[in-house]
C-alpha cells in the first residue's frame, strides 16, 4: 500500500502554492510541518481530490490496484478532517456521524455500530444527542476526528487536527493517531512541533510550497523544534 505523489504542483494566479512535490508514502504516521502559507493545506486538499493539481499526479497503489484520486474507490479508502471542520449546527453528534457514514457508503447497521464505537473513543457518548452548536471547540474537533475515521480509511488526512484540543486530549489523540498509523497512511499537518515528534514515523517539512526536509525525526541530529525554527529563519528574516 502506497500513496505516490509525482511532481504535484498547484499554481494560482501570481503564486505557486505547491511546487513539484514528489513523495512515496507508506503506512505510518507522516507529520507535515510548515508555517502558515507553506502549502500544507493545498497539498492535503489535492490528496483528497478537492483541488485538482495544475500538474503532476497522485496515485494510490493498493492490492495490485492503482487508484486515481478522482475515483470512487480512492475516496472509499480516504478519511479527511479539514482544517476548518464544518458541521450542521442543528445536527446532533450522532446524527452527524450517521450522515457522514451515509456519505461514505457505510451500510446502516455497520454505521450505527461504528458511530457508537467512535463516540466512545472520542469521549462524546454523553453528548451524542446534543446539538453540535452546543459543543465546545475541543468536542467539535473530536467529532471531526471521529467522522474522518468512520470508514476505517487506508489514507487518513488530518489538517491541523490538534487545534482546539486541551493537553490531555492532545495526548489521547496522539495515541489514537499512532494506533491508526499501524494499518494506514496517516498524514497530519501541524505547525506545532511537539505534535509530530512523538508519533510521526516520517516528517515532511514544507516551506513556500516546496519540501525542505523529508525523513525520520531521528535523521535530524538536533532537537526537532530548533531544527524547525532554524529552517524558517530565512523566511522571517526576509
Amino acid at each position, binding site marked *: 500500500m502506497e500513496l505516490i505523489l509525482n511532481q504535484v504542483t498547484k499554481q494560482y494566479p501570481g503564486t505557486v502554492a505547491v511546487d513539484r512535490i514528489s513523495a512515496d508514502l507508506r503506512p505510518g504516521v507522516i507529520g507535515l510541518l510548515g508555517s502558515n502559507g507553506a502549502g500544507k493545506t493545498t497539498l492535503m486538499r489535492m490528496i483528497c*481530490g478537492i483541488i485538482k493539481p495544475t500538474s503532476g499526479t497522485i496515485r494510490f497503489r493498493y492490492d495490485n490496484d492503482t487508484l486515481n484520486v478522482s475515483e470512487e474507490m480512492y475516496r472509499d479508502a480516504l478519511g479527511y478532517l479539514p482544517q476548518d471542520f464544518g458541521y*450542521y449546527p442543528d445536527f446532533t453528534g450522532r446524527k452527524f456521524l450517521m450522515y457522514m*457514514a*451515509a*456519505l*461514505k457508503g457505510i451500510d446502516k447497521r455497520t454505521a450505527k455500530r461504528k458511530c457508537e464505537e467512535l463516540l466512545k473513543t472520542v469521549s462524546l457518548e454523553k453528548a451524542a444527542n446534543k446539538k453540535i452548536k452546543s459543543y465546545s471547540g475541543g468536542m467539535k474537533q473530536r467529532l471531526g476526528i471521529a467522522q474522518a475515521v468512520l470508514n476505517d480509511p487506508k489514507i487518513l488526512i488530518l489538517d491541523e487536527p490538534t487545534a482546539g484540543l486541551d493537553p490531555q486530549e492532545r495526548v489521547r489523540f496522539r495515541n489514537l493517531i499512532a494506533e491508526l498509523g499501524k494499518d494506514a497512511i496517516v498524514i497530519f499537518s501541524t505547525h506545532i512541533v511537539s505534535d509530530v515528534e512523538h508519533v510521526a514515523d516520517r516528517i515532511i517539512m514544507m516551506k513556500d510550497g516546496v519540501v525542505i526536509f523529508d525523513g525520520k525525526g531521528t535523521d535530524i541530529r538536533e532537537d526537532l523544534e530548533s531544527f524547525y525554527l532554524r529552517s524558517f529563519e530565512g523566511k522571517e528574516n526576509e
Partner: protein
Amino acid sequence: MNSFSLYKAEIKKILSRKAVWIAMAVSVAFVFAVGLINLSADGHSAYVKKQEKLLTAISGNAVDDAFLDDFRDEMEKKIDEDPQLSDMPAAYDPGAAYRNAAEQAGKSALYDYLCSVVRDREEAAAITSDGFYRAMREDIVSDGTALGSSEAELDTWLEIYDGIEKPMAYSYALAYMKILEVLYIVGWALFMNISIALAGIFADEKTYRTDAMILSSKNGRLPVCIAKIAAGCTVAVTEAVILLGLCMGVMFLFYGTAGWNAAIQNVMPSSPWNITIGTMVLIYIALAVLVSILFAMSNALFSLLTKSAVATMAIHAAVIFAGIFNIPGKAGVIKKLWQLRPTMALYSGTFCNTFRYGGMNNVEASVLIYCICIAVIAAVLPTLYGKTQVESR
C-alpha cells in the same frame, strides 16, 4: 441500499431545519384560516349544511327551462310571502329580492351560480335555458378575446364547448368552487415553503464548510448530488400534497364532497373544457406535483450556482413576485408564453385559458415545458456540481 440511506439522510438534513417546520406550520394555519374565513362569509355552518342538503337533492337535474322555472317560481313565492324581501330599492340592487329569497330558501349557492353565468343579477332571475347556455358561450368568447386569443383559437375551443351535451346537469359543488378561490394562496404558500426548505440544499455545504468533507467521501460526488435532488423533490412534492390536501380537506369538511362527477362548468362557467370537476381536481394535483418538482429543481440549480441560500430565496421571491403581473393581450406570443408560467399553474383561470400552443391546450403545453425544464436541470446539475465544487477551486 447505500444510495437510499444517503437519500434518507438528505431528507433528514432538510427537515432538521427549524425554518422548514415554522414555514409549514404557518402555511397550514393560513390555509385552515382561509377555510374558516370562507365559512364565516357564507354564514354559519348550519346554513351551509342546510344548503348542501337542499342543493344536493336537486343535483343531477338538467339545467333546462323547467329547472330554471322551478327555481324562479320558488323564489317568487318566497318574495310574495315575505314582502320585506323586495323592500330594497330596485335602483340599489335589482336582484336583491331574489338573492334574499334564495338565501332564505337555502339556495343562495344556486342563485350565485346563475349570476356567475349571466353576470347580471336581475337577468339571472329571469334567465331561460337558451339564454343560460348562450351566456356561457358568450363568456368564453369575451374572456378569450380579452385574453388575446385569435379567432381560430376561439373556434377550436367553441367547437369543444359545443360538443358538451346540453342541457348540462346541475350539481352542488360549492367545495370545489371554494378550493378554486383559494388555490392561488395555496400556490403561494407552497412556493414559499419549497424555497425556504430547499434554498440551502447545495449552498449549506459552503455555509457550514462541510463541502470538503463531502467531496472527499465515497458518495460525495454524483451520488450525493442525485440524493440531494431526489430528497429536494420528495420534500417539495410532500409539501404540495400536504397543502393541497389540507385545502381540499378543509373545504370538503365545511362544504361536503358532492360534485366530483359534475361538469367543470358548474364551478367554472366560462371554461370551454369538456371534463368533470373530478378530472379538473386531478389535473390540478398533477400540476401541483410537477410545479413542485420544477421549483425544487430550480432551487437546487440556484443554490448550487449562487452557493447562498439567501440569494436563492431572493431569486425565487422575485420569480414569484413577477408572476403576479399580467401582460396585455396585445403582446401576442409573449402573452401566450407568459400564461404558462409556473405560478399560473395553480390558478383558477387555468381552465379558462383559450390560447392554443401548436395543437396543444395550455395544460398540455405547460406539462411539456415544465418536463423539459426539469429534464434539462436534472441533466445539467450533476455536471455543474462537479464543475463548481472541484474544478473551479
